């Protein structure tokens, strides 16, 4: 279980997170929605320790994420970045097997390559892709490779940062379905940030809406459409008018 209590983060005068309280139950898929610039990515990076919160606590299974062995902590996570964040200088299989090839529990190269090819197959990519470089792949294929890298070490928790941004609707549907299948299959806890409502409906067990630096609404995905919160309703229906100010 991941618990965030009173998490604050500012960048200069810009107060991005103003006291985020959120609980993600073990094995659940939590999707965090909210407009661009509301701090969704910052929240996710706070959990991973990539950004240090100014105040508040974040715990994983009751342990403060800022204390203890950092490598051991990070080994429990997998992450799919918005743009894939694949290492250009490494081949696809080396990207997928990056964690497997390094650290105290490093695998022999052949074994790591076999695992990488298996994970690539799991996300619908042929073994022939393994020896290509990321620059030779389409955006959708890069997302799949990023997904394969995120699940390569069978993590307990997987984060997905805008998994369908920049993809066509069909490829978005494929990625959403893959994420859902993998999360269910691996029994992992998942935290996804997106503003793509089709992703929300495909991936989420629980939904939380971040607005003005706090969690505005949270609940099961099935209750989202009937929720009375006007901010949530404006966002999920994409209305130009409502309590959330649009920039014209």
């Amino acid at each position, binding site marked *: 279980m991941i618990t965030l209590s009173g998490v604050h983060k500012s960048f200069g005068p810009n107060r991005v997170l103003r006291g985020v309280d959120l609980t993600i139950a073990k094995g659940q898929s939590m999707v965090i929605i909210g407009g661009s610039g509301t701090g969704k990515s910052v929240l996710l990076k706070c959990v991973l320790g990539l950004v240090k919160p100014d105040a508040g606590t974040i715990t994983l299974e009751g342990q403060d994420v800022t204390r203890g062995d950092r490598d051991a902590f990070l080994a429990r996570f*997998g992450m799919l*970045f918005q743009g894939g964040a694949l290492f*250009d200088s490494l081949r696809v299989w080396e990207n997928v097997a*990056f964690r497997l090839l*390094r650290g105290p529990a490093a695998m022999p190269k052949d074994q790591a390559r076999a695992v990488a090819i298996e994970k690539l197959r799991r996300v619908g990519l042929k073994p022939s892709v393994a020896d290509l470089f990321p620059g030779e792949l389409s955006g959708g294929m890069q997302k799949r490779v990023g997904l394969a890298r995120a699940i390569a070490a069978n993590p307990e928790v997987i984060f997905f940062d805008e998994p369908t941004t920049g993809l066509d609707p069909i490829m978005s549907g494929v990625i959403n379905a893959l994420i859902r299948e993998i999360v269910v299959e691996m029994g992992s806890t998942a935290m996804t940030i997106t503003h793509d409502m089709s992703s929300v409906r495909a991936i989420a067990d629980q939904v939380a809406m971040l607005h003005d630096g706090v969690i505005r609404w949270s609940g099961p995905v099935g209750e989202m459409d009937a929720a009375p919160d006007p901010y949530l309703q404006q966002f999920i229906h994409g209305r130009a008018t409502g309590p959330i100010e649009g920039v014209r």
Partner: protein
Amino acid sequence: MIARLLAQIGRPVLAVLAAFGRVTLFGADTLRHMVTPPFYGREFAIALLQIGWFSLPVVGLTAFFTGGALALQIYSGGARFSAEAVVPQIVAIGMARELGPVLGGLMVAARVASSIAAEIGTMKVTEQIDALVTLSTHPMKYLTVPRVLAATLAVPLLVAVGDSIGISGGWLVGITKLGFNSATYLKNTTDFLEFWDVGSGLVKGAVFGFIVALMGCYFGMNSGRGAQGVGAATKAAVVAASVMILAANYVLTGMFFTS
């Protein structure tokens, strides 16, 4: 009025001092990570190839033409006081002590500091640095240490090769255009060149290599957002590395050759 003037002077001075402090801390952090595991041998080998081997043509050509031009200058200048015969000795000493390491360092700064800053800056803006962290890999250990170590070891070798090529350039000009006897030219070169002339240049090369890679990594890691941020980081890395090489050269020359 006076307070405003002082503030206008003080602000950039403080900014420069703060930047110098950040670079110093970054350098200290790099040295600390250099002596603690894990080490990334593959990344070190790639950096050695990129920084050392692929810089050879540009350093070699620079040294060759510099050695030739130096021979011409010393000959024409020396003619004013009948000292044309010192061309071999001055070319050798000038290349080994000063021009080999400084021009080699500057050429490597132009080629390597820019490419390191651009590469790491791009990795930063495309979240590859964040990805490294989430994969339990320290960016300083994986990106900075191999490059700084490789540059510190490779640049002295480049300087040594550059010295040889520069002296050869002087020799070629000496025997083809200035009327020197080949054997006499080479004998004068070897007789008057002392070990420390070459050794001091190699030490300078190591310091310049460290500076070049450190600046490339520092500005890359602190790159701003987007293409403009990476471009600014690249430019700043080359400028800072070049200025620091010239400043370090003055300090090292003072240390080595003034008693």
